[in-house]
């Protein structure tokens, strides 16, 4: 393979060639595809229940699943591209030197395409059960491909625009209204992925309406399938237009981090969520559990906060008289998978000396226990909604299943890196909703 001339791409090329080791690396990379393929029959058994015999109903159910997967893909990419261009691990090096802005954006786009490639294939796997309906497969593939491309390029474009918006006086009142307890600059960074998702989501919904019209006999509807692709093209253009803002990123991030540091110093020693539960933990685990609660809450407050907000979404989904709890369980399972992802995230943040210097007694178990404790917000919210609307039996069974899913996710998440956790989490969630 020839060496790229772009210095940013050359760095990526060299790191990739050394970080990835043989068959195991390839297996981890494509594991999500295998996991989705394995999970599909389990999820379809529930999500498409009652519509399998009716072709029109089945089309609608598959399309509905595809739209959800497309939105999920776009949401993940809007966050993933934030990590890639704003908070990338190479910022500490790149930020000290002049930056070849367009070359850097090109390299990041290529890296994003390569990194997110398996996710697109995994999403396309959801169309496999519809292989006898070519029109649906083509439309679904166009929608998923467009969502992937738009999520990726708009994610990079909008996230790159955020740092310069963060310091623009003209929108300061808007940022102040949105920021909550966060520094003003952080508001722009927090809401940028949401902005990317909003635009991509509109394009996906427009394309879906087009597909539905086409399926109902109006071929002009297919033209709307191009909406996500149009958004993707706009995203690429925005990414290159915004490239010059790259040099502003370190100052904005520096402002955000130093402000948080000042806030956190002031609240040191109190107000750490669930810290009080430590006193009931087994003696040997207590110091580790305390460390996880403090480090986890202060380091992943945004992630945990989003999980708690998502619990409301889970409860809303469960607030239904429709028989069974399959859909709400599937959603709750995915939300719990998000909480379980705190395992690999927190372990990646642990300092190297922790593993080198201190004995590891109970460390993984303490992390698992903390994840289970954090996940209770989602489990209890969903179970409570089911108790009111579906009765004691359904609620109890659902609660037990969700607790089981959470425990397994917590045990797995506290021990595996993200590459291993994601495919296993998909399977665990699918099994969790299997009738």
């Amino acid at each position, binding site marked *: 393979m020839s060496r790229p001339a772009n*210095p940013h791409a*050359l*760095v990526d090329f*060299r*790191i990739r060639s*050394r*970080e990835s080791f043989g068959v195991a690396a390839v297996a981890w990379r494509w594991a999500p595809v295998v996991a989705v393929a394995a999970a599909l029959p389990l999820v379809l058994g529930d999500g498409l229940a009652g519509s399998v015999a009716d072709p029109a109903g089945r089309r609608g159910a598959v399309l509905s699943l595809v739209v959800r997967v497309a939105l999920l893909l776009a949401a993940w990419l809007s966050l993933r591209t934030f990590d890639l261009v704003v908070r990338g691990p*190479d*910022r*500490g*090096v790149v*930020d*000290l*030197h*002049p*930056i*070849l*802005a367009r070359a850097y954006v090109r390299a990041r786009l290529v890296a994003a395409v390569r990194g997110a490639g398996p996710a697109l294939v995994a999403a396309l796997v959801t169309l496999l059960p519809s292989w006898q309906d070519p029109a649906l497969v083509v439309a679904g593939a166009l929608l998923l491909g467009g969502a992937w491309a738009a999520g990726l390029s708009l994610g990079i474009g909008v996230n790159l625009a955020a740092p310069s918006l963060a*310091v623009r006086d003209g929108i300061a009142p808007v940022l102040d209204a949105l920021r909550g307890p966060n520094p003003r600059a952080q508001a722009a960074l927090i809401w940028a992925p949401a902005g990317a998702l909003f635009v991509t989501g509109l394009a996906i919904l427009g394309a879906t309406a087009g597909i539905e019209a086409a399926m109902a006999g109006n071929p002009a509807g297919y033209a709307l399938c191009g909406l996500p692709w149009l958004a993707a093209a706009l995203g690429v253009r925005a990414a290159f237009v915004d490239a*010059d803002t*790259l*040099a*502003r990123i*370190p*100052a*904005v991030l*520096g*402002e955000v981090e*130093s*402000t948080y*540091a*000042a*806030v956190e*110093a*002031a609240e040191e020693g109190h107000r750490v969520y669930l810290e009080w539960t430590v006193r009931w933990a087994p003696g040997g685990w207590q110091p580790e559990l305390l460390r996880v609660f403090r480090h986890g809450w202060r380091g992943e407050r945004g992630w945990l906060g989003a999980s708690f907000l998502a619990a409301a979404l889970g409860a809303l989904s469960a607030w239904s008289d429709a028989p069974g709890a399959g859909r709400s369980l599937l959603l709750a399972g995915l939300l719990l998978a998000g909480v379980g992802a705190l395992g690999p995230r927190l372990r990646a943040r642990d300092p190297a000396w922790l593993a080198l210097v201190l004995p590891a007694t109970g460390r993984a178990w303490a992390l698992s226990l903390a994840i289970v404790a954090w996940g209770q917000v989602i489990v209890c919210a969903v179970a409570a909604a089911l108790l009111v609307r579906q009765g004691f039996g359904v609620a109890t069974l659902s609660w037990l299943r969700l607790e089981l899913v959470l425990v397994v996710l917590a045990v797995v998440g506290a021990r595996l890196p993200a590459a291993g956790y994601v495919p296993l989490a998909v399977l665990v969630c699918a099994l969790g909703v299997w009738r």
Partner: protein
Amino acid sequence: MIVATDVVKKFGRTTALAGVSLSVAAGERVALLGHNGAGKSTLMKLLAGQLLPGEGRVLLAGVDVSAAPARARSVLGYVPEEPILWEYLTARETLEYVVAVRGTGDLEAALALTGLGADADRLVREYSQGMRRKVAIAAALVAHPPVLVFDEALNGLDPPSALAIAEELGRRAAAGAAVLISTHVIDLVPRIADRVVVLRAGRVDAEFRVSDLGPEGLAGVFRRE
């Protein structure tokens, strides 16, 4: 070359810099001293564009760091207090990158200066802390930028390497560069600086030429407090 004018920086209710003014002329080497928490690293980060001043201005070679951060980077060689490097690149490859993005630089000379020559083709992840710091110093020096800002950069280096880099900073200053270096190693100050600025509680507390120091040297300055 380096001009900070009335710089104020607050973090919440904490004032890190309370109106600091400092200048380093072309050809001059200035050591920045002070207790932990005096504001040295905050000032260094402001100079390097890693933070925005709350009030005041920072200019590097006439370029406003806040208004034109991209241009400011091209005139600055900065070594942060805790350098971050690509773990899966070698020192040579890291410097190749820096030379490529800066468009100029003598890679072999920078490796030789920092004593990394024999280890230049090993991955950074195999390096000791001192060797990592040498890579960061080589990256700051390789393209001969006219402004050099070193934040505790010589800490943790073996004495011969620290002296070699101190001498190189002298040569760079003689060639017209402005050098600002913060350190806690006061014994090294006479070798790396012509002038000393002492920060205390976010203000410039004292400023003097190294040649004006009494027989007790810098130890005397801090002992009197």
